[in-house]
């Protein structure tokens, strides 16, 4: 074997100039990260799958409000008799004969009863209830969509093999991971806003059928603040499931792992929670209490608690038994665990085929 000379140079060699046509951006950590998030956004925007998922989200939001509007439609087309209150049963005259104690309602009364029924039926189409419904739609069907979107974005880098291309371009693996986390947060925010606004606007449009105007008596600075917090919590819920998809996508190095892992978590958690509550109830004693307390540390229960705690200011009702602090700490631990584990796996993994 020919002799080789061992390099002792530790100072970096000077960087020669590049061609004028290469325009480099600022190379600070945050600038690189922002550029990577922009790159991720560009990739998501250009994917057909993203467009399909957004379309599905919008269609679902519209469809659900259309379903709610059916009730209004039925009330609008119901005959006047259906608004008369049934007479109390008594040993009066035979069937078919008029009851002297139950006179037929006047036209004004029928109109009043009809308006009451219409107001009640169309309530979900108007704010503030429409906000609750729109967010609930987002948190059920929408969560599946964000999991598919982010799971395929994170796991797809491994499935397709582009991770080799990305990891040899300069930014650190942590920056690439943070870009994925960043895009997950951005998609969660955009998605929740899109679904909520679509739902609210659809509700308002359909509410026009009822001719009952949208009142704004509920509107106050406090209400707006709580409504914004409510939306932020919904975004947080999506973001957590998106980070689960990133974690499983990274762990399993595939799109399928990312999507299936997060969906499994999403569906198994409430089932497991119900089982634990049930077993805890039957077991009784300290062990039973322990089992019943476990679901208090589940993601769904804690995001649900946060939503309920804000919902009481927006829609009325009571708050959750779990405090905001408890829920926030639990969710923060989950986020730190999923992002931290994804980082650890990324850092210590050899990127082969």
């Amino acid at each position, binding site marked *: *074997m*020919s002799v*080789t*000379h*061992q*390099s*002792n*140079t*530790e*100072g*970096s*060699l000077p*960087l*020669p100039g*590049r*061609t004028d*046509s*290469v*325009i*480099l*951006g600022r*190379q600070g950590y945050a600038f*690189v990260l922002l*550029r*990577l998030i*922009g*790159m991720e956004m*560009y*990739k998501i925007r*250009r*994917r*057909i*799958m993203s467009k399909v998922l957004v379309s599905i989200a919008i269609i679902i939001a519209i469809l659900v409000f259309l379903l709610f509007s059916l009730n209004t439609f039925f009330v609008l087309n119901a005959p006047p008799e259906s608004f008369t209150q049934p007479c109390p049963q008594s040993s009066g005259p035979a069937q078919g004969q008029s009851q002297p104690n139950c006179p037929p309602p006047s036209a004004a009364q029928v109109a009043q009863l009809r308006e009451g029924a219409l107001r009640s039926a169309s309530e979900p189409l108007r704010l503030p209830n429409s906000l609750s419904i729109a967010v609930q739609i987002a948190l059920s069907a929408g969560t599946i969509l964000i999991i598919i979107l982010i799971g395929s974005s994170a796991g797809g880098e491994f499935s*397709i*093999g*582009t991770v*080799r*291309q*990305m*990891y*040899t*371009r*300069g*930014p*650190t693996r942590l920056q690439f991971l943070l870009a994925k986390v960043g895009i997950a947060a951005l998609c969660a925010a955009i998605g929740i806003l899109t679904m909520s606004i679509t739902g609210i606007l659809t509700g308002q449009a359909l509410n026009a059928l009822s001719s009952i105007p949208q009142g704004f008596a509920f509107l106050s600075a406090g209400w707006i603040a709580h409504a914004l917090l409510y939306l932020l919590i919904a975004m947080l819920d999506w973001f957590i499931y998106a980070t689960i998809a990133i974690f499983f996508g990274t762990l399993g190095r595939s799109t399928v792992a990312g999507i299936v892992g997060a969906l499994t978590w999403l569906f198994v958690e409430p089932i497991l929670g119900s089982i634990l509550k049930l077993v805890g109830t039957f077991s009784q004693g300290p062990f039973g209490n322990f089992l019943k307390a476990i679901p208090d540390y589940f993601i769904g229960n804690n995001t649900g608690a946060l939503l309920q705690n804000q919902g009481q200011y927006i829609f009325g009702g009571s708050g959750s038994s779990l405090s905001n602090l408890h829920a926030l700490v639990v969710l923060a631990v989950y986020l730190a665990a999923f992002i931290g584990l994804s980082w650890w796996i990324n850092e210590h993994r*050899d*990127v*082969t*085929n």
Partner: protein
Amino acid sequence: MLQENIEASFQSNVIISTSRLTKAFGRLVAVNDLHLQVMRGDVFGFLGPNGSGKTTTIRMLLGLIRPTAGRAVIFGMDTTQQMPSILPRIGAIVETPVFYPYLSGADNLRVIGAASGMVSGKANQRRIDEVLELVELHAQAKMAYRKYSLGMKQRLGIAAALLTDPELVLLDEPTNGLDPAGMFEIRQLIHRLTSLGKTIFLSSHLLNEVQQVCNRVAILQKGNLIKQGNVLELLRGSEQVLIKLNTLEEIQQAKIILEEAKQQGAHWISAVHVQTDRQGVSTLRVDTPKSHSAEINALLAHNNLFAAELHPYEGSLEEVFLQLTTQSLSSGMRQGMAALAGGSSAIQQTGSIYGVERFGNGKGGI
């Protein structure tokens, strides 16, 4: 002082230096104790049969995998410590390059550019057009990557590697999937890059192509470096003088004369072989620098043997490669290979490319 200056100048020109670089996957040692040195402006050929550790080495140089032991220094910076400073100065293709199938070629380059520190958006459109032009993909710039042929994918990989105008280009089988015209273009491109002062690190199976573009090579086998050096120097060791005489008896006689001359002090003769090709034509092959052709002719003429043909043979990298890589193979395997190549002399005689590719997987390369 002068010695220090020479040393400093030498060090400043070392682009890649590895020292005891080792990678083991469990009990399998993929790369063992590798010492490499690539100088500024080199077109460095990295050769070896399939599974010899070439791609593993490239992956270690790019930080995709971590060495089990040893270190690699690129641009004077340790790869385990300063990879973020090293990578922006490198353009690389690792195995078959892969891009986002739903994006067009130009959009993929835009994404790669953003990941490489280039300004996002349309600012770098001119550079993207330049590299697409360079690899002759400008006509398919807007076509979705999933519709690209293998050759087009490979060319897009080269375009991506050159996008930031890096000073070091690592190419792992860059002509994989390219037709002969495409290979020729890549060879021209490498020459052009070298003239621009770029350093090229080229891993390949196609030794004839490597011989045409590389000035230095390293040959790897089973994870071990078995040879590293200047291509011309390596080839010098495989130079021969081929002699044809009128009869087989004359050939045998000439062989004895030359072997005696070697014993009597003609050390420039390394070995003398008689080889018979498939047509039954025998040739005397003398392992010696071609500059000794005239002396051999004179020696034979002095003994009343007059060559019908005598010509120097420069040898090829393939022969050097085969000679080096088959040394450690078992004799049984060697015989099997020789039989496949058409007799034990066929490999030696022709340095058949087919013999070489039997080590590999038939992948192309420069």
